[in-house]
């Protein structure tokens, strides 16, 4: 599943992550949650890819694997970062598994993450300055005066002005939207070229949500940042992403350009997701999603299609074949379904 054009910033191939269950200190785990299973995609520089799915589908795990907060069980991630403004850099294309020790610290300058919960992602005892300057401090970039200037500058950039009024506030002195701006500032202060945004707006109110969304878009354009935008909300992904990948129980089931995916969903799960979104438009009447049952945890799942149990279109073939491979049904529109 690749995006035509220049060499991708991040190339993910067959990425797999399994979490062991009920493992004691001296016992070998007997079963695994297949949180991410054979996921592949490409992310170009300055591109925004949406990773959409319900809770527990593995989307956050993919994000953490990409910024190396977790180590994968299998598969490859290859990065090709541009030379950074400061410090040493990871030259050419590097494999995630080769980034260790000193290199990991340099890697952190290139790949950052914005977390979901603005109320929990800041240390309540530290000030806005401490929080934003932390990446600079642990990376040993600049001196105290230089950091203060840099932090003030980035506060202005994320719309917290005048910076002086915010520098020494603690999280409880900020609103949800303001906290998320601080979180964005912390992620961007060392000038990354790739940011994983894990549901940055899902805990915010409608009116602050749009502000954060447009801020993130503006900064991506201005600073040339690529996003992996993780969300459960297709409507938000529509506004934030060039392409959308839909995940279901650890697998990417469909991936396409945003408008193409929304207008012409091919996978039955994508269709169900789309028809379940409520809308305030009194003119819009929607069909109920036609899938059954509840989401389960992918604990040692059978080899067949992950969606088989809930699929309205399932056939004999789906029952007896392995999980369908991704096929390009239309240009740049990939679907993993035998019946699509």
């Amino acid at each position, binding site marked *: 599943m690749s995006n035509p054009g220049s060499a991708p910033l991040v190339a993910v191939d067959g990425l797999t992550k399994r979490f062991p269950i009920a493992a004691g200190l001296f016992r070998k785990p007997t079963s695994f949650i297949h949180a991410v299973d054979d996921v592949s995609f490409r992310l170009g520089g300055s591109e925004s890819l949406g990773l959409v799915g319900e809770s527990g589908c593995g989307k956050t795990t993919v994000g953490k694997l990409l910024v190396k907060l977790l180590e994968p069980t299998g598969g490859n991630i290859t990065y090709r970062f541009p030379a950074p403004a400061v410090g040493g850099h990871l030259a050419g294309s590097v494999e995630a598994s080769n980034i260790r020790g000193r290199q990991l610290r340099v890697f952190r300058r290139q790949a950052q993450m914005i977390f979901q919960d603005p109320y929990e992602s800041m240390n309540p005892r530290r000030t806005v300055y401490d929080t934003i300057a932390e990446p600079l401090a642990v990376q040993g970039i600049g001196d105290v005066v230089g950091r203060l200037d840099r932090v003030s500058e980035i506060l202005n950039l994320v719309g917290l002005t005048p910076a002086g009024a915010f520098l020494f506030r603690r999280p409880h002195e900020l609103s949800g939207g303001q906290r998320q701006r601080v979180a964005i500032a912390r992620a961007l202060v060392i000038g990354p070229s790739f940011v994983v945004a894990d549901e940055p707006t899902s805990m915010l*109110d409608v*009116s602050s*949500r*749009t502000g954060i969304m447009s801020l993130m878009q503006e900064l991506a354009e201005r600073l040339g940042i690529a996003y992996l935008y993780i969300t459960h909300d297709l409507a938000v992904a529509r506004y934030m992403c060039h392409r959308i990948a839909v995940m279901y129980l650890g697998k990417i089931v469909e991936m396409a350009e945003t408008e193409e995916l929304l207008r012409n969903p091919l996978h039955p799960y994508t269709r169900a997701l789309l028809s379940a*979104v409520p809308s*305030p438009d*009194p*003119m819009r009447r929607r069909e109920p999603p036609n899938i059954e049952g*509840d989401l389960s945890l992918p604990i040692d799942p059978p080899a067949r299609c992950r969606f088989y149990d809930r699929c309205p279109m399932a056939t004999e073939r789906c029952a007896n074949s392995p999980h369908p491979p991704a096929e390009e049904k239309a240009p740049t529109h990939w679907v993993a379904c035998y019946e699509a």
Partner: protein
Amino acid sequence: MPMTTADTEPVLKVVDLSLSYLTRQGPLQAVQSVSFELGRGQSLGLVGESGCGKTSIANCLMRLLPDNGRLTSGQILLDGQDLVPLSEEEMRHFRWGQMAMVFQAAMNALDPVYRVGQQVVEAIEAHGVEVTTAGARERVARLFRMVGLDPQLMERYPHEFSGGMRQRAVIAMALACDPSVIIADEPTTALDVIVQDRLLRELKGVQRELSMSMIYISHDIGVVAEVTDRIGVMYAGRLVELGDTADVFGAPMHPYTAALMSSFPSISGEKHELETLPGEPPNLANPPAGCPFHPRCAYATEECREEFPAQVQRGSRWTACWHPLTDMAGVGQ
């Protein structure tokens, strides 16, 4: 406020309700002069951002206020009976019996050490709706079927339920004593869209079937639009617009409602530009003079800064705004 949808007396009538919380900074006006009516079998949505007072209203109605909450004025008339002066003992009869609430965090509403069915049975027996345990169990089985749960699940413990199932069990519990009003406070917020969709359909179905009245509280205008007949939009403790859901969302009169609409990303139709509302909601311990929305409002004028606007009535709806938006092009000043 005349009601058009209900021909009979409203089930619930809230008149000039005000609530403040006593805090270190002084009193915090969480709800201010809120009035509305709820007809029999009608569903009313309350929308607004966090801290706008919508959950506080629900807590007022149920009289489940924290120690520092004070009702400073108003009446809550349930079938003509004012709940405000009632003692805690008298209130207990109305709570669950006549008016039941579905909370946002379903896990907290269920006791983890008892079987789910047993908890509902106890609620029924406590209110004397059914005298025999067998009768109560029969009733619970019926309620479970009604909300789309297999009655066999009665014998399970809450932790064996998924999020959606738990929320359904809580709804069944709320329905247990056949209340005339059910208050749902963000019942689907923690759920995924597909589960949410099914739950909303079931909730709506049950409400219609039993011709119950419902107050549905949510920050998600999409959800509210789908389950309610009428809608009230709240801002900074005030009700700023009230009307039939289709009318309000079709052509909002209050600039805040319009802003909510235009900041809502839509999945269908043309991709419209999302508008960002500048600023933050006011500090309720020290709200701005006049209309609380004026610092963020594009149409604000001198009067908006000085006095809270009177209601502008239009048919079955009204708004509290000096410059209500009209269907025609002439918008404000």
